[in-house]
């Protein structure tokens, strides 16, 4: 192993060497710089690998041949090596990245860069307090020098502010250092004894040192100066400043907190969480990309500080957790800063330019997923471990603050991503191969890191999961035509089903069929797409991968990871739709919010255990069980879009593409239902404050069923109508599940199947109509029955099935429903459910009438039947619905038997094709027979009498002896249920929307108000800094007083 000291030596040496070169030989100087950085990186990496593999042991390097405390000593351990690797490699890549500017400004700047990297490495390694100070000052000087790289003149001001603030910090640090020395007689960090937080000179000294190091981490709100640098500096430097400097400073703080003792940890926790929350909140109001990245950097480092504050409860996993967050932050943030160099405009929406190059979009998505802690990236594992540790130790408030802030961060980043995907860019992307190579290298690194963290997680290594890899496979395959990819995707789904369906219980099997085979069926519609359809298959397969994994998951970790996969995949899918930007955003925010509730729930349930089987949910301690139930239920209910948490759904489903809407509505919603199945299966009745939580669920389900239906009746947009109808239908399913009896579950399952079939069918049908008419507004259509007969048939069958009218399968659902409510004690919620039945008619009739009946319009007179591939799956669904209606036993019987095992009863008797319950009978074949015979008889009668009817055209109607004027004024479709709105319109009051808008406005308002705090004046920043120190000190004193 090469001595780590050489890292410092190489940096310094090369810097001096540069001084010897001639002024003009910038190129040579650049190579020297690169070589030196590469060498430093190589050493660091070799140590990392060596230490990780056990080939080397941590070393303590003493300088001047003397042991500490009489000389400076450096330490090279696993963490140090890894972090130095990060620092040096960031430096190396940034150097490449800044090549042009480095060459322009010459060797002196390169020297400064080398010194900066060297100082950062030194900061990580050193164990000497004063040496720490020296390295910090070196970093300040070098940073201030590099800020000048930027062509933005505003950077000058930022740099000066930085210097002003650094001066104040260095005064604090130096005073702290000297008094620490005075108290301990040593400058060696390891000699600092753990010190309680009592009011003595020594603790004041350690406070000063700690607070100075914390200030280096740009804590909120004393961080305006840093943001100005992020905003104005060269992106290459910002990458270093954010990734490398942040990492090194965080590690330095960690070192000091490590020795200062557990009493000081709350200081780190407090400042960390305040910073994380504050920075993310303020980022909400940002429209400048780099400043937003700055806020995000501050927030991430704050999070690391918070994790450092949890050293006592994380114990040995601290490096894993903190490292996961830190390294995700470093890679993603430097990647994003590098990407920002490729974008000319500085508005967030200017990132739409990246669409010119799909690879860059992938990189962007990767970095954002990495920052938000989505699987399979390291921060995901870290988040998992952190929340588990926090919840196990009862830090609920902290967890809540962390998760809320993480949610805000996700909102900020995904809003940005949405803009990049949906907005129009004014300027093209910069074409610079070096930049792109650097960015792609960072992206590659992120996947490597994912593998490492996965391997070290002690859980499943997510990146090696076959479905995920299959989804990722479509990234390189995106250059092939969509039809070929579609075939592969369908084959993949079918093969995965064949591989995984063995040994599943019938409920899981039904869900697996819906999700995987149903997905394959729906993908048939995607054959319609022409061209390459870039960016469709990866998210789609990611979503299906998530769902496939969800069904087969056994541990909570697998479950949660699958949940995140399907969430993210569906987000990208939804985002593809027309006008879907805001809806996709609210979808991802609600979904991640729900996912975080799941995370918290699982963490609470597991009690700190890392491997927690979902089946163990039934065994958790009774005092936490209700809370676990609530958290998990919130997570699942968000997905099923229960009333109150539903506002994301209509937009997301309505704006999605034709073949995506059925996927996200017909299939994706079932994930939430599946979760509830599992939850109720394992946990059953739970009581909180004397309220049976399943009763709450019953009410929520009933309310959703009713209000969803009413809202659907008032929609003008066909897809929105279907979306609200999904809310209503899922409400029924939740209601059935929460009844907690055999038939209720059967009802829910029947609804799951039926809803999948008819909602997919209807969404496809409406999508097909939209393909032809180019509108979703129903009143603009009309009279399409003769033009699109197949589509009409599928809608007709769909609405008959959905409304529960015999003989189609919806009636089976109603029959089971009545039998289910006969055996429950709950009665009042039935009122809502009874009401929602007929209301369902309203929207269903409106759907079919406004589109297919009535008066066709001028411009739609020649539209053709929907494309074959959109109609084909519908016809399969129609066939299925009819078959299922006549022979429900083919699916339900097995499931019924299985549910019977769970509840230990068997209320239904299946004799032949007749179903008998304790209360009544359902004989589907006889119903079909009677209806068919009567219908055909009467039809023949009518044909006999009226066979010679004259076929007339659309205006041949009696019109009070007038004639119709125009189809538009003759088609009664707009505001179809005006009288109903008069009577029940109060239900339309957007209470939930208003509430969430209020929350969002409050957050934005707070952000908008608070960020005025950053006045831009360097002196103000310095004053804020001092006030921050004083305030923290007073709080520390106060908490000390409270403690004593």
């Amino acid at each position: 192993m090469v001595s780590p000291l050489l890292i410092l030596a190489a940096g310094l040496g090369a810097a001096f060497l540069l001084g010897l070169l001639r002024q003009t030989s910038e190129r040579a100087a650049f190579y020297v710089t690169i070589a030196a950085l590469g060498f430093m990186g190589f050493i660091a990496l070799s140590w990392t690998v060596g230490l990780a593999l056990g080939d080397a042991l941590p070393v303590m390097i003493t300088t001047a041949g003397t042991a500490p405390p009489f000389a400076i000593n450096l330490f090279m351990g696993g963490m140090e090596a890894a972090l130095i690797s990060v620092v040096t490699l960031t430096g190396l890549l940034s150097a490449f990245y800044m090549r042009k500017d480095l060459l322009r400004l010459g060797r002196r700047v390169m020297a400064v860069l080398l010194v900066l990297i060297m100082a950062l490495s030194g900061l990580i390694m050193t164990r000497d307090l004063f040496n720490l100070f020296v390295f910090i000052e070196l970093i300040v000087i070098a940073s201030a020098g590099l800020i000048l790289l930027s062509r933005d003149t505003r950077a000058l001001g930022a740099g000066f502010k930085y210097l002003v603030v650094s001066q104040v910090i260095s005064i604090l640090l130096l005073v702290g250092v000297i008094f620490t020395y005075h108290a301990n007689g040593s400058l060696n960090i390891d000699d600092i004894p753990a010190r309680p937080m009592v009011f003595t000179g020594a603790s004041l000294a350690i406070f000063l040192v700690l607070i100075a190091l914390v200030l280096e981490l740009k804590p909120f709100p004393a961080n305006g100066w840093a943001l100005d640098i992020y905003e104005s500096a060269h992106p290459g430097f910002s990458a270093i400043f954010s990734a490398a400097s942040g990492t090194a400073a965080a590690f330095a703080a960690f070192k000091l907190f490590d020795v200062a003792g557990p009493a000081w940890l709350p200081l780190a926790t407090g400042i960390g969480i305040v910073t994380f929350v504050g920075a993310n909140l303020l980022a909400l109001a940002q429209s400048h990309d780099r400043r937003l990245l700055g806020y995000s950097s501050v927030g991430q480092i704050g999070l690391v500080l918070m994790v450092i504050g949890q050293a006592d409860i994380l114990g040995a996993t601290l490096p894993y957790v903190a490292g996961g967050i830190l390294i995700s932050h470093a890679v993603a943030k430097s990647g994003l800063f590098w990407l920002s160099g490729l974008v000319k405009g500085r508005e967030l929406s200017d990132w739409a330019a990246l669409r010119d190059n799909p690879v860059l979009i992938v990189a962007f998505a990767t970095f954002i997923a990495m920052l938000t802690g989505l699987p399979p990236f390291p921060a995901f594992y870290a988040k998992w471990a952190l929340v588990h540790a926090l919840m196990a130790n009862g830090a609920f408030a902290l967890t809540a603050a962390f998760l809320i802030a993480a949610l805000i961060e996700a909102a900020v980043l995904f809003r940005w991503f949405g803009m990049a995907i949906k907005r129009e860019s004014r300027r093209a992307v910069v074409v610079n191969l070096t930049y792109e190579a650097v960015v792609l290298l960072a992206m590659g690194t992120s996947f490597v890191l994912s593998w490492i963290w996965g391997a070290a997680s002690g859980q499943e290594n997510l990146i090696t999961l076959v479905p995920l890899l299959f989804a990722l496979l479509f990234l390189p395959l995106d250059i092939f035509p969509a039809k070929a990819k579609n075939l592969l995707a369908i084959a993949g789904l079918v093969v995965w089903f064949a591989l995984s369906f063995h040994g599943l219980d019938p409920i899981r099997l039904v869900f697996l069929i819906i999700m995987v085979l149903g997905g394959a069926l729906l993908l048939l519609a995607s054959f319609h797409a022409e061209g390459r359809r870039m960016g469709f298959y990866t998210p789609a397969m990611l979503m299906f991968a998530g769902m496939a994994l969800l069904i087969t998951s056994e541990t909570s970790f697998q479950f949660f990871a699958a949940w995140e996969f399907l969430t993210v995949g569906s987000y990208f899918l939804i985002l593809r739709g027309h006008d879907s930007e805001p809806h996709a955003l609210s979808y991802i925010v609600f979904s991640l919010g729900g996912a975080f509730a799941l995370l918290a729930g699982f963490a609470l349930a597991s009690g700190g255990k890392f491997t927690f089987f979902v089946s163990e949910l039934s065994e958790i301690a009774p005092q936490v069980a209700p809370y676990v139930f609530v958290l998990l239920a919130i997570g699942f209910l968000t997905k099923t879009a229960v009333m109150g948490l539903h506002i994301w759904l209509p937009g997301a489903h309505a704006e999605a593409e034709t073949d995506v809407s059925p996927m996200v509505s017909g299939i994706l919603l079932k994930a939430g239902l599946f979760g509830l199945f599992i939850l109720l299966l394992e946990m059953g009745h739970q009581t909180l404050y004397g309220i049976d939580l399943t009763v709450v669920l019953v009410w929520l389900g009933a309310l959703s069923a009713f209000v969803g239906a009413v809202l659907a009746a008032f929609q003008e947009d066909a897809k929105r109508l279907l979306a609200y109808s999904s809310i209503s239908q899922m409400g029924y399913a939740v209601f059935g599940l929460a009844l907690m009896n055999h038939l209720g579950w059967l009802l829910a399952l029947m609804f799951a199947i039926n809803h999948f079939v008819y909602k997919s069918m209807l969404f496809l049908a409406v999508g097909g109509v939209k393909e032809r008419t180019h509108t979703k507004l129903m009143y603009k259509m009309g009279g399409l029955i003769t033009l699109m007969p197949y589509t009409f048939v599928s809608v007709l069958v769909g609405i008959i099935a959905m409304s529960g009218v015999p003989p189609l399968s919806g009636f089976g659902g109603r029959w089971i429903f009545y039998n289910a409510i006969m055996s429950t004690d709950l009665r009042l919620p039935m009122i809502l459910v009874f009401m929602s039945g007929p209301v369902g008619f309203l929207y269903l009739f409106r759907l079919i009438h406004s589109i297919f009946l009535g008066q066709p319009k001028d411009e739609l007179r020649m539209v053709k039947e929907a494309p074959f591939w959109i109609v084909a799956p519908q016809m399969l669904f129609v066939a299925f619905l009819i078959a299922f209606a006549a022979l429900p036993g083919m699916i339900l019987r097995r499931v019924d038997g299985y549910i019977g095992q769970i509840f230990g009863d068997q209320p239904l008797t299946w004799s032949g094709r007749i179903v008998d319950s304790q209360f009544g009978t359902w004989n589907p074949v006889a119903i079909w027979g009677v209806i068919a015979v009567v219908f055909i008889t009467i039809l023949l009668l009518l044909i006999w009498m009226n066979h010679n009817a004259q076929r007339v055209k659309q205006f041949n109607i009696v019109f009070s002896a007038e004639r119709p004027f125009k189809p538009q004024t003759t088609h009664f479709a707009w505001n179809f249920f005006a009288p109903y709105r008069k009577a029940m319109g109060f239900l339309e009051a957007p209470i939930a929307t208003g509430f969430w808008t209020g929350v969002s406005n409050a957050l934005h308002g707070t952000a908008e108000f608070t960020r005025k705090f950053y006045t831009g004046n360097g002196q103000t920043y310095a004053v804020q800094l001092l006030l921050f120190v004083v305030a923290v000190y007073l709080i520390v004193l106060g908490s000390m007083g409270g403690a004593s």
Partner: protein
Amino acid sequence: MSSFPNFAWGQVPLALLTLFIVINYGMIMTALVRKIGARVGGRYGIPIWQNYIDLLKNIALRSKISHGVMYYLAPVFRLTGGVGLLLFVPTIYGSDWHQNFSYAGDLILALYFVFFGTLGMALGAGESGHPHSAIGVSRGLSQVTMAELPLALGVYAISLQYQTLDITQIVAAQQGSIFNWTLFTNPLATIAAMFAFVGTMMRSPFDVVIAPQEIPIGPPTEYHSSYLALMQTNRVLFPVAKTVIYMNLFFGGATNWAEFAIKVFVLYMLTAVIGVVHPRFRVEQSIRFFLKWGLPVGVLAILTV
């Protein structure tokens, strides 16, 4: 086991017989009710056979038009709804002859099959392209959302009371004495259901659907000739079939045709009497009416059962 456990070919003529009796009874009864209304108004009123003549006249019409497939099928749906409803419900309790095809399902089948004809009619009316038809459908659907609610609650209450969804069993439980009728054993459920009964019989004050003075006659505006004939048939058949359900559930059913005739007539007259003394509600008024009066009674019914 066969899907038609009690099926025998002999049932078909028996069912046809039931149908024949009910249609003729409906023809005469509705004419009679109109005649009674006329007499109350001091008029002589229509001939008792007028329904037959009108039916024949409509069938005898020579020129017919069609607006399209759904338009053509709607009367078929409509009449199938009426006939099916009748056939899925046992007409005469205790009679082997008039159980029809009630083994196909139970009360729930009947309740939901009510909508079969409505839906088909609404579709046909929609295809006729006439705005008044669509307005009528809009009104009808809006009104039925609330009008059906008390019935659903009442039915829920009595099925809880009798612990069955089987109509025959419910009727059986009411035999013996008049005080065994649901009307007396569960008056709240009965009142609730009667709200729905009055509300869905298309009579004033709940006849805004066809509102002859403003939107000619609502959904059937474009229907004529044999289409209208089928719908007329349904118009005499369906109320009777529906009344049979109410009679079975709340008024002890009928053990013979005479009892059947009287009970159906009385129930039907109830709506007629209410109709002649009340002006028409607008849709939102009737919805509020059912919310204010029907719903609380229904809720009390399911809470007290």
